[in-house]
């Protein structure tokens, strides 16, 4: 870990950001930043759910690298519904519908790759990655043509959702209640995996597929269900990010969050609690590094360098253990 940090500091130095600048940025971003914790919680909404999207299929022995695409389609579906509904439904109904349709979109997208794996043996680490690029194209198509807000200028964006469709803030804060929903889902997933028959079955399917088949478990269905449920989590993450924070679809709505979440879940080695906490930590790093751009003059993507260094350090230190 110290080596990873040192590598990042050295890198920043070559980009004319001295360690003092970095400290200044950290100081501004975290210590002097009264809303640091709130911003972290807001960011954590898509990150934690996308991390769960990796953890659930990992139990069944499947690698879901498609969190990014599932987040995007969740946001796309929620936007479509939210804009169509407008203000015709009372808030809670429209929130529920948005979450539901986001879950369906992400779940289908993930489940599709699961089905391709089960029926055609198509390797899911590759198909889920390819699916991300297709999802991005779908979103861009909608944003540049049918859904483009005619009143918007510059970057294309969808029409904004009606204020009634947006989740309310937790009183006294600028964090929407989306984070509470996320905590709920995290607990639910933990319970599902650790305490239910279904969780046990997908663990067996992942641990020893042959034994699972011989003991009569419907392994194909369990595999598809696990990655479909994972995709649904990411889809919900996309929807909550939209109705809790963004309010309208824009091209870089989830830029890279699906991948950050994958790393968090991977480093957590399939543990729900650890994955959620690591996703929270990564969200804190993302927030803390916002001022890197303003204060230290680094490009916004510098945070990927920092995360990459840290993850490389963590992954390389954990020898011989795989998800």
């Amino acid at each position, binding site marked *: 870990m110290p080596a990873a940090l040192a590598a990042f500091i050295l890198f920043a130095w070559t*980009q004319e950001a001295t360690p003092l600048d970095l400290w200044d940025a950290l100081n501004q971003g975290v210590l002097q930043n009264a809303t640091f914790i709130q911003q972290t919680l807001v960011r954590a909404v898509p990150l934690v759910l996308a991390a769960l999207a990796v953890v659930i299929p990992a139990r069944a022995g499947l690698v879901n690298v498609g969190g990014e695409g599932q987040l995007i389609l969740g946001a796309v579906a929620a936007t479509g519904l939210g804009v169509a509904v407008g203000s015709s439904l009372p808030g809670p109904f429209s929130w529920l519908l948005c979450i539901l349709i986001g879950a369906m979109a992400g779940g289908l997208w993930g489940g599709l790759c699961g089905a391709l794996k089960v029926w055609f043996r198509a390797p899911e*680490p*590759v198909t889920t990655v390819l699916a991300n690029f*297709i999802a991005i*194209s779908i979103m861009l*198509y909608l944003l540049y043509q049918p859904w483009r807000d005619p009143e918007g200028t510059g970057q294309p964006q969808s029409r904004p959702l009606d204020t009634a469709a947006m989740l309310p803030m937790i009183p006294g804060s600028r964090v929407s209640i989306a984070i509470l929903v996320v905590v709920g889902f995290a607990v639910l997933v933990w319970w599902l995996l650790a305490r239910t028959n279904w969780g046990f079955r997908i663990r067996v399917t992942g641990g020893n597929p042959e034994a699972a088949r011989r003991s009569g478990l419907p392994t194909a269905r369990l595999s598809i269900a696990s990655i479909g449920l994972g995709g649904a989590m990411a889809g919900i993450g996309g929807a909550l990010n939209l109705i809790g924070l963004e309010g309208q679809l824009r091209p870089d709505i989830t830029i890279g969050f699906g991948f950050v979440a994958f790393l968090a879940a991977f*480093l957590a080695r399939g543990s729900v609690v650890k994955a959620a906490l690591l996703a929270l930590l990564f969200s804190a790093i993302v927030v803390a590094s916002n001022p890197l751009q303003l204060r230290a003059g680094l490009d916004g*993507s510098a945070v990927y360098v920092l995360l*990459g260094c840290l993850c490389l350090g963590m*992954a390389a230190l954990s020898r011989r253990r795989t998800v």
Partner: protein
Amino acid sequence: MIEIIFASGIAVGTALLFPSLGELINQRAGVTNLGTEGGMLGGALAGVIAGLATGSAWWGLAAGALAGVAVAAIFAWAVVLRGGNQLASGLIVWFLMLGLTSVIGRDYVGQGVTSLSTMPIPVLAEIPFLGRVLFTHDPLVYGGFLAIPLLWWFLTRTRAGLKVRATGERPLVVDAAGHSAVRTQFTALLAGGALTGLGGAYLSVGQVGNWSTDMTNGYGFVAVAVVIFSAWRVGWTAGGAYLFGAMIATASVLQARGFAVNQHLLDALPYLVTLVVLVIISARRVQQPEALSAALSTR
């Protein structure tokens, strides 16, 4: 129109051919390298920087290959020496390179670099259709044509190639025979990295003529898919790379002709086709390298 699609498909496909052949070496040695996308990004940026500094596309390509080796070294360290998970390490390397190249490349965005000039082959280029499609390109495209049989010969007809394949099938046997599976795998990754970086540099220096952030746009992942759907065979890998190139060319030709299709839907076409072909081919049971994705024991 068919002629244009095929000709530019070959040219675009070359940017994918080198990384695909590199990935093939990696996988034959038992490692799935999702960091290919990162290696291409590194090669693309290094190629532009060196090309601008020296004014020569060839130095750019060389620098791209070197950058690819450097990126592969990080991946190989994590995977081979530290026993890190291959898929995760690959994604981490991609991430790292996405960040690094975005930050460093910011000052280079849009700066034009001298690209390779086309060099039609005298007599052959006159052949109707085929001549235009195959023999009116820049030298690196021809280099790609040569690399295909060379790699096939290396993998199937040389001792070193045998060692690479054996490492991907039975690493323990390689060790027992007095060779080092670890060293073979490490070297194979570096060699694959050089090809990957070269492909990236060909994309930026040879094809586009400048650098833009995240310009590889998933090609590295497509290379991984191409290798898998080729069933780890050299010829099919090359075919897959050119097919993908032809898809990209089709998309841009359709667009240039004012075909009433949205550009972003066309952008999805190559990935969709790759996915479909991958699925169709995976459905047949093919023998993958036996020790693919298994971590070696470094002790």
